């Protein structure tokens, strides 16, 4: 067996269509063990959005971050951090044992409509169009010395949705193979960097034979698989896509196998690799998911590693996530919001905690305060909500692992979909308009008598409960 770092702990294979599994991934470089399914926190410019390093250390349990080379493209080929003599974690003020996953592109990267070259990827970054030569990517990989290195792909423009023609397929298979070859040859893996090979998402396995056989020849060096499910489906408003049992990650091209196990089956079929060798590789979804439902679906299909793009996206939108997995035992299984928009005026004097069902990490900070911060356009709202949402996601994954281990994942997933779906769809929450007008009645001449507001505190709720 080539891969001793990842081992599947329990899986529900054979149990209907659910392929969810738990496992442990050893990361010897930082001396960490990640239990999967696990969450990576995407960083931008080496920092976690809204979280200063002291907050990361003191108020979150973040163990692993995703760093994309795209954030450092500004001054290529002169990248100051490549000159730093020490461990790159030091310069980013990260803890020494923080797991670092290096990817070419950000999880929520914008597709570029410029064509890649034989030796470079074209990307559209926040600073405009940039070209990332593969040799520079390798330089980053050597210098950043990540725990996991995700290989680049020659992806056709995923924006158009068009299926690449035969010549383009040949080219992209060839380029991806060459780039993988370069990386295997040039990146020093003796210091425990684990190479994750990227799966070509829109290409029929039959056409990928060359790529597969190359993977086959280099299985010694490959420690994991990276998938790019088609994000446009995940972003869709249409909740049928989420709920559908035929939830198909590769739409609109429809050529990638529906789940990683059948992908692995195809690879082994076309390349004579022993299935077991590939099945035991960890599977990373490097695209962004915006709903917890998407993550559950992907877990049920057997994926192991995910990016947490949810916490920050909702925090920036003023939404406090409010769900757990398994869903809490509500009296009746009527639909619930999986988050609350703190923009709503109803929270302006609500002195109850932000957390309802998840772990309390905000302590004394109440809904009314975050509502005020949002209204006053104070950045601290995003900081507090990111801290809260990150913990909700951590708890969510803890619940996923627990239910997979005790074989209740499938039924809990069904219950989750029943409770947290329908009108209260998160996409709507993100877009929720805000129409809050500042009240300045304290200064109004001849101030009219106003109805006295009475805030409620957690103690009041308790009191009500006990006196019912």
């Amino acid at each position, binding site marked *: 067996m080539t891969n001793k770092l990842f081992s599947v702990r329990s899986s529900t294979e054979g149990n209907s269509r659910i392929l969810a599994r738990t496992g442990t991934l050893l990361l010897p470089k930082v001396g960490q063990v990640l239990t999967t399914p696990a969450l990576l926190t995407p960083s931008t410019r080496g920092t976690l959005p809204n979280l200063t390093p002291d907050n990361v250390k003191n108020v979150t349990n973040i163990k692993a971050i995703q760093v994309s080379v795209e954030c450092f493209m500004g001054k290529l080929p002169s990248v100051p951090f490549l000159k730093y003599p020490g461990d790159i974690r*030091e310069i980013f003020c990260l803890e020494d044992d923080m797991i670092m996953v290096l990817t070419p592109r950000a999880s929520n990267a914008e597709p570029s409509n410029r064509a890649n070259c034989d030796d470079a990827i074209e990307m559209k970054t926040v600073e405009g169009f940039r070209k990332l030569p593969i040799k520079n990517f390798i330089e980053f990989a050597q210098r950043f010395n990540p725990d996991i290195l995700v290989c680049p792909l020659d992806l056709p423009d995923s924006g158009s949705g068009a299926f690449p023609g035969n010549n383009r397929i040949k080219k992209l298979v060839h380029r991806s193979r060459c780039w993988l070859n370069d990386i295997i040859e040039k990146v020093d893996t003796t210091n425990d960097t684990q190479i994750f090979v990227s799966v070509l998402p829109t290409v029929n396995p039959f056409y990928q034979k060359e790529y597969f056989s190359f993977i086959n020849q280099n299985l010694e060096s490959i420690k994991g698989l990276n998938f790019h499910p088609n994000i446009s489906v995940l972003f869709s408003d249409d909740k049928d896509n989420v709920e559908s049992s035929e939830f198909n990650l590769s739409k609109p091209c429809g050529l990638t196998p529906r789940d990683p196990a059948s992908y692995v089956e195809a690879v082994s079929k076309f390349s004579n690799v022993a299935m077991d060798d590939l099945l035991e590789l960890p599977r990373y979804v490097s695209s962004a998911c915006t709903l917890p439902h998407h993550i559950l679906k992907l877990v049920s299909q057997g994926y192991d590693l995910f990016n947490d793009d949810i916490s920050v996206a909702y925090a920036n939108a003023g939404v406090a996530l409010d769900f757990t997995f398994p869903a809490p035992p509500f009296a009746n299984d009527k639909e619930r919001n999986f988050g609350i928009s703190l923009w709503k005026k109803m929270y302006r*004097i609500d002195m109850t905690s932000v957390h309802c069902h998840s772990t309390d990490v905000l302590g004394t900070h109440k809904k009314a*305060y975050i509502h005020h911060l949002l209204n006053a356009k104070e950045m*601290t709202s995003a900081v507090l909500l990111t801290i809260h949402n990150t913990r909700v996601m951590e708890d969510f994954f803890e619940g996923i692992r627990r239910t997979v281990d005790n074989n209740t994942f499938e039924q809990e997933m069904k219950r989750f979909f029943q409770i947290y779906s329908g009108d209260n769809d998160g996409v709507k929450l993100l877009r929720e308009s805000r129409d809050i007008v500042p009240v300045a009645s304290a200064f109004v001449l001849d101030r009219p008598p106003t109805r*006295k507001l009475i*805030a409620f505190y957690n103690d009041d709720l308790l009191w009500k409960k006990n006196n019912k």
Partner: protein
Amino acid sequence: MPSPLASSASKALTFNVIAKCSRSKARASTMILPHGEVQTPMFMPVATQASLKGLTSAQLAQLDCKLCLNNTYHLGLKPGQEVLDAVGGAHKLQSWDRNILTDSGGFQMVSLLKLATINEQGVKFLSPHDGTPMLLTPEHSMSLQNSIGSDIIMQLDDVVSTLTTGPRVEEAMWRSIRWLDRCIAAHKYPERQNLFAIIQGGIDDDLRKICCEEMMKRDTPGIAIGGLSGGEDKSSYCRTVSLCTDILPQNKPRYCMGVGYAEDLIVSVALGADLFDCVFPTRTARFGNALTSSGSINVKKGQYAEDFSPLDFDCTCPVCKPKSEGGMGATKAFLHHLVTKETTGAHLLTLHNIHYQLNLMRKAREAIVDDKYPEYVREFFSKRYAGDKTRYPQWCIDALASVNIDLLA
């Protein structure tokens, strides 16, 4: 504990001067407020809208900040008085169980709203939201600050630009005195909130003297020196502060409003002031400026892109302190890379700058207690100007000489 050199106690404030510089007028004191003891000289960071730009109250507490400011004008707009009343005040709203000081709201109005006009009744202005005519009276200001629940509240004063001359200055001075009387009458909670008077009178020595005498008759728990830091020349500023501290009682705290540049703080402490506030350290952080012992540096500059050293080798803030000592160990290169691109860059510089201000005053206090304030002042200037005495500002040399500190010694 030795008995204090001077002390006063009112219902919600006990002030004890515990040490005095044997040369200058600098003094060290403890002040017991409803939300805990604070030590002066002290800088108070400004959390305008009940939040310090991107920091959590836990982070601010970690910097050992014991007293921060909120702005009454802003809190009156958002979240508004009804909400403040409903939730039980600003401490509860922002989860800050330490002390809060609020201004009267008047200065903010006059400086933020061009159309504000002042008459005997109060400050008239148009709502920034819909243009409705509104009025801030001394009674309104007290009512709002009572709803906020701040530990120190400020009287509404008639603010005129320090560059103003002629009868308007005197009018504003007398009106501020009348308004203090109205504030005292309207203040609902003297047992838990301390109303401070504000000395006005521009840079006119006679008016300042009269104002000090009149305000002292009202026997407020503390007194502020207002109407400065508005563009007057530095020597006028120093002369006015020094004149006031000579008259004001030894046993009450003196608050120099709107002062925050390091040199101003160091000199004002020598002139006998205890409390200071300014938005400067937080505002300048958002433009990429870090305050250091050798002056302000802008980390946006290209020269810092590959500078892997901390902002300030002397700094013990959580940002600069190396990881081995429990800090973050941030370098100029990292901050250069973040600042103006990621909000965390501004948050880190804000943390550093507030620490710088708090620490500058903490160390000043230690020096006063050890009766080494003149040495502390000389060391401060020497570091700031890299030992080059020819670069020392003349106003600093003069002001310090007036209180027997020879900067060039």
